[in-house]
């Protein structure tokens, strides 16, 4: 009787959520959390129930979740699997519930065999034991929205606690990140480590804003034989011996690299491939390595892994490019210092002149504290200042961004403030020459706002579809 009652509740919750999804679509709203919230209200255990219907892979970490999950998806497609995935904005319990419900038939049966779920780092602790994933990928840990996530070690420990409840899951971890790699230490799980080979990556040098300069086990200062960026690299603790673990999947060579992508060699005990990545930005090599590791775990052969990586072409992370007449508009999401620094390094590879606009908001989803802008190395802009036609600042905190640029050494007569996004796009495009690019770097909610305008004016497709 109890079982039947549970099923009834499950079905009622599913139907309610499905109605909500349909209604929200009718109103052209991309809302992804409300249907799940309703379902969770009606049947609090619904997630456990839903998760039992799919074979689950979870992806978490600070940067690169979205790109990695798209690469993993193309690995799964190589295998011919039917996969439901969540959108990056729907990575809390309500959004994930909505996603899984939308993958059911009206009768409550799954239409997909697998679920690939990007999960918020803070929510991972409670979600992992409920979703019982077969595989967990952790990309990296960096400081991110301290007002929301709290201290970095709290985040790492949250993920650690979640993992301790799923001893059967295969872990795919970044060996170069001492915080991330520590998740695999003393865990009963099977672990696949990925990383960058010694000295392969053009070094950025250690930053004083390193998020993990000191041993997570014994608090001594790590020694590095090479650093890629932030605190990532070949670390070793001289006092307790904790060091970068041996990798199963490693980037053993960067043959070529420009603003559109790279050509890399990936090798390990079980594979050796040479592949072109249509992913700009060196840090995306890490995401590709995570994806390749997943391919291995899935049992794909070298050819299929290479095909999945090279066939992957959706721009990077949250970079979107649209052609407007003979110009190009690029929008790249920025959300924390490490990610922002990587975007700036990517811009350094632009050879033609370009217009650069920043749109900084401080709503809840952006992080209400924008002090992190001072941890970003805007000083590197001086290296490209000649190629930047002008600097635009926009968003709720445009003034703060202007101050940051000024103190980074940008001459104030080249800083333009434009708070109206429509005007911003028009003015910035006007200054962009034919064949050139206008780069807009928005925080999360600014990106949504700008996207809406681009959609209206230039027919950019909606992103929750």
């Amino acid at each position, binding site marked *: 009787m109890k079982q039947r009652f549970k099923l009834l509740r499950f079905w009622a919750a599913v139907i309610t959520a499905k109605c909500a999804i349909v209604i929200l679509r009718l109103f052209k709203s991309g809302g992804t959390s409300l249907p799940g919230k309703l379902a969770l209200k009606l049947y609090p255990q619904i997630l456990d129930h839903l998760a039992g219907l799919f074979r689950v892979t979870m992806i978490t970490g600070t940067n690169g979740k979205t790109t990695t999950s798209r690469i993993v998806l193309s690995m799964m497609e190589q295998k011919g699997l039917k996969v439901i995935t969540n959108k990056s904005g729907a990575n809390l319990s309500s959004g994930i519930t909505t996603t899984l419900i939308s993958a059911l038939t009206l009768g409550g049966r799954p239409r997909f065999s697998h679920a690939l779920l990007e999960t918020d780092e803070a929510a991972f602790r409670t979600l992992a034991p409920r979703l019982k994933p077969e595989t967990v990928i952790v990309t990296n840990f960096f400081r991110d929205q301290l007002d929301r996530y709290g201290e970095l070690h709290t985040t790492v420990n949250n993920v650690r606690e979640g993992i301790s409840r799923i001893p059967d899951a295969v872990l795919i971890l970044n060996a170069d990140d001492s915080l991330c790699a520590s998740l695999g230490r003393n865990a009963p799980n099977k672990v696949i480590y990925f990383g960058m080979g010694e000295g392969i990556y053009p070094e950025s040098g250690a930053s004083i804003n390193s998020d993990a300069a000191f041993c997570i086990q014994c608090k001594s200062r790590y020694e590095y034989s090479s650093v890629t960026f932030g605190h990532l690299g070949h670390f070793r603790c001289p006092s307790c011996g904790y060091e970068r673990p041996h990798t199963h999947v490693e980037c053993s060579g960067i043959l070529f690299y420009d603003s559109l992508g790279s050509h890399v060699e990936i090798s390990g005990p079980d594979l050796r491939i040479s592949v072109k990545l249509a992913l700009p930005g060196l840090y995306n090599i890490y995401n590709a390595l995570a994806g390749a590791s997943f391919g291995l775990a899935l049992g794909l052969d070298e050819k299929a892994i290479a095909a999945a990586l090279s066939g992957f072409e959706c721009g990077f992370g949250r970079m979107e490019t649209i052609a407007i007449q003979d110009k190009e508009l690029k929008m790249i999401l920025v959300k924390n210092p490490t990610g922002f620094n990587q975007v700036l390094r990517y811009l350094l590879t632009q050879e033609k002149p370009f217009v650069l606009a920043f749109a900084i908001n401080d709503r809840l989803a952006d992080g209400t504290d*924008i002090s992190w802008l001072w941890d970003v190395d805007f000083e590197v802009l001086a290296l490209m200042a000649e190629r930047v036609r002008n600097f635009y600042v926009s968003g709720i905190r445009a003034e703060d961004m202007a101050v940051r640029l000024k103190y980074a050494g940008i001459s*104030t007569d080249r800083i333009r403030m434009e708070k109206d996004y429509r005007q911003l796009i028009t003015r910035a495009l006007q200054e962009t020459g034919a064949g050139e690019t206008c780069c807009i770097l928005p925080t999360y909610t600014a990106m949504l706002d700008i996207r809406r305008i681009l959609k209206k004016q230039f027919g950019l497709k909606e992103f929750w579809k």
Partner: protein
Amino acid sequence: MYELTICHLYPDLLNLYGDRGNIIALTKRCEWRGIRVHSRPVSLGDRFSPDECDILFIGGGQDYEQSIIQDDLLKGKREAIKEAVEAGKVILAVCGGMQLLGRYYRTHDGKDIACIGAVDLWTHGSHDRLIGNLVFECDFLKKDGFDGLVVGFENHSGKTWMGPGVRPMGKVIAGFGNNGEDGFEGAVYKNTYCTYSHGSLLPKNPALADHLITLALKNRYTDFEALPPLDDSLEAAAREAMIRRLTGKQGSGR
């Protein structure tokens, strides 16, 4: 040519919330006026000597990082920092830095963690998180001829109180301040300035940055009188925007 040495205490460990923005602001505002700045990181195992320092900056760190410096700070640098405070060196301590300068930090389970004890203030951990944008009003800046309003962002669960020898840095206009109860923000003792306003405190409050630079130059050069003004219109716009947003009122623009 005037010169100043700015020391940054544990820059690799106490560097939360864009703390280095304060160092950047001090340095740039000196350089723009032809004052040469030497910046010196002082980290684990480094000797700190008050004689070789004009301005000392102490930022906040995460618990993990703060636990790493504990020994080095209390056994190695405590006396030198106390000496610097008593000698009237210019010190800016933000958030965790302010707590460290105090007598002790009492965790919410009642454990006392010893601190430097250079300033008569103490902090009690709480379960509330005092977080958000902040505006406070400083009399010493009014005396310098400004409107005295300082904007910042606070994020702390510790509540700080001070003894009779210490003045608050300002009166809270919007936000929580030291403890969310007595209406005060920060602490001033001699030339030591403590505040919960982190991140871009000095870049956005140039009057405060210049106040500290002036004190440091007066300490070092008997002939120094005043800093030449700079064009601070961008800084003023950023400060004004926050004052308007939090108080609904206009600042005076400087």
